[in-house]
């Protein structure tokens, strides 16, 4: 300490202090500066893709090919984009148990959202495609529900029914019910057109329109929906109503008739 103190008047002391100060500032900057993050992200991005590739090779490659080029059992994934992966894997449709079914059903997803993101990053790296939408894109904030209803009836109801209860397609295929499907997945389905569904890219159906449709579905076909008339009987229209009228309506009335007929005034026996 004495040595240091003795040299504090050295002509180069100021230079040394300056250097030390610069080094400290620079070090702190290097440790906390956003510039450093960019570099770190790139490595983590490539790490994500690597992880995704590993998952891909185990879970997907047997049908979609080792490089996503597709095979007789599954289509090419080049250019389908992250949105398609997020939809297919996030709704449990992928991985499919067989490609021989009329249609691959939704089931409980087997990957975590983190793993799905890794898979999506890998598939997106194979070729450019639609990205996973942001929360802002599919939230019902600022959406026009009535406009969404009109768009839904024009574009979607042919297969999915008036309020998205689902419907039959040819040869065992079907348009699934949209009840309580996550808004993100509805958005991605419109964007990518999974299985038999046509795709509605932003050029034919704008972001705003998609948002409207999602808000409409949330209003008429979710656990938040209110049915002012009571039990909705599946929302399937006259078939379930007719069945109900026969079984519970006429059934109850016949039961009442049997009851009334059995309760007769007995003639007095003399």
């Amino acid at each position, binding site marked *: 300490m004495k040595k240091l103190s003795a040299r504090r008047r050295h002509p180069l002391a100021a230079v040394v202090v300056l250097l030390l100060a610069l080094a400290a500032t620079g070090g702190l900057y290097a440790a906390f500066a956003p510039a450093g993050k960019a570099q770190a992200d790139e490595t983590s991005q490539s790490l994500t893709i690597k992880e995704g590739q590993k998952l891909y090779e185990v879970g997907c490659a047997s049908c979609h090919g080792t490089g996503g080029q597709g095979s007789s059992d599954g289509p090419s994934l080049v250019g389908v984009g992250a949105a398609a992966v997020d939809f297919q894997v996030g709704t449990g449709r992928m991985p499919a148990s067989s490609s021989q079914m009329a249609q691959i059903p939704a089931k409980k997803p087997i990957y975590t959202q983190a793993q799905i993101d890794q898979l999506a990053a890998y598939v997106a790296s194979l070729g450019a495609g639609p990205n996973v939408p942001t929360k802002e894109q599919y939230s019902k904030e600022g959406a026009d529900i009535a406009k969404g209803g009109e768009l839904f009836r024009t574009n979607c109801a042919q297969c999915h029914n008036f309020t998205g209860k689902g419907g039959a397609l040819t040869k065992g295929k079907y348009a699934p019910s949209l009840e309580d499907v996550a808004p993100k997945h509805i958005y991605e389905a419109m964007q990518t057109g999974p299985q038999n569904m046509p795709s509605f890219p932003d050029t034919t159906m704008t972001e705003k329109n998609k948002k409207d449709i999602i808000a409409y579905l949330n209003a008429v076909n979710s656990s938040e929906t209110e049915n002012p*008339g009571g039990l909705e009987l599946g929302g399937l229209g006259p078939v379930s109503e007719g069945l109900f009228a026969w079984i519970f309506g006429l059934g109850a009335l016949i039961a009442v008739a049997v009851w009334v007929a059995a309760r007769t005034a007995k003639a007095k026996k003399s």
Partner: protein
Amino acid sequence: MSTEANEAPRSRGKAPAGERVADWADGRLGIYSLAKANMRKVFPDHWSFMLGEVCLYSFLIIILTGVYLTLFFHPSMNEVEYHGSYVPLQGQLMSEAFNSTLHISFDVRGGLLIRQIHHWAALIFLAGMFVHMMRVFFTGAFRKPREVNWLFGFLLFVLGMFTGFTGYSLPDDLLSGTGVRFTEGAILSMPIVGTYISFFLFGGQFPGHDFVARFYSIHILLLPGIMLGLVVAHLILVFYHKHTQFAGPGKKETNVVGMPLLPVYMAKAGGFFFLVFGVIAVIAAITQINPIWAMGPYRPDQVSTGAQPDWYMGFAEGLVRYMPGWEVNFWGHTLVLGVFIPLVLFGVVLMAIAVYPFIESWVTGDKREHHILDRPRNAPTRTAFGVAWVTVYMIGLVGGGNDLWATHFHLSINQVTWFVRIFFFAGPVIAFIATKRICLGLQRRDKEKVLHGRETGIIKRLPHGEFIEVHEPLSQEQLHTLTAHHQYEPAEIGPTVDENGVERKVKPTERLRVKLSNAYYGKDNQIPKPTVDEYKEITSGHGHH
């Protein structure tokens, strides 16, 4: 002493008010003799005789609730923008008809409940008429003298279908609009007249601006007016013919065994009306029907999957759904067989059940009146025909809902359609044969019971070790009930050569009649009921069972 004093002036003075009112009315309306004749009218007791009452009461409920709905409904197709209380339709363009139906559903006090009672009652009315008609059919209650009343009932059912259809179309929602479009297609498929009828009905191109107003007049005035008249005629004939009854001790073709209209049936029927109203009101209060707000306003460029009509038009929908889409081009005109053939079949299927009573009476040649009902098993061919008809009808309903069968039972809609196509032909044949076998089996069982008594389930061991089941002879009442029915003899062509050796020409209709008669009543088509001799021989003590 005091009572005498009180009564004496009354008999000389004015009669009590009630009596005076009754006297006044009787002097002008003649109700005394009318009431005297009808108050003691006897009705037999059976739950299935009350099905017609279900129809009558639901019809009254429909009229009552319908009147309330007309107070708020605007039968107009003028376009308006929606600004009511249902958020998901705010600002949408729609017809005034749709707008006012939304208004009834959300903003009129009790409007939605009344709408739902109206619609549920309509479905139950039609279902009730169907079951009532089947009761009349399977018990042979349509036989002389009731053929005309059968036709009245049939007409009520058909008019009910069309009244229901026009009412279902009034709100101008996307579902019913699709149904009206379907109807337009069916009308257009008629050769030559189709386009003219369509233009006349819609006042030009579909949908035009007229159809809601026109359907409104038809729905609230024309058809219900005719139906009301038919209901009255139907009831007058029921009164005039007196009610039928099942065979039983003391019940004859010339009497009716039951309870008098007043007070027993008045109380029962009055109470039953409120029970029917109550059941329908409870259903309407807890169960949603035809949520037009969820379907949205009709626009010809929109359509939804699962677009079906109410159940009573379902079999017509089915006929079109499973008919192959055939089309013929004929001298520059298109004949859409894929729609026209179902349209014809629709009429044929309905007419088949309507004319059946006349066919049966022609085959039997029976000119007597029948007031004792048949048990379905004792008329195997009729019962089999009825079940075959119901099968065709039900197959149509399955076909009309083919998409829902596919989605809810995880089937292919193509497979469902093919199943329906095959069973449209095979179903009635199988149903006919199976029903006839079952009926004959039941007839054999009845014969067995009459001759050998009821199986008691008690096993008795005889001294020499044989086990027998103890049969308990039936009571006289039961024996009568099981053997009261009349059995026809199959018709024969008779001698083709008369006593002078002149050959008689046998008409083809006569041959057909004899053939049918044998199919109805020939050997193996009915089990001869036990004769008195058979019964006596078996019960006279020879043998023990």
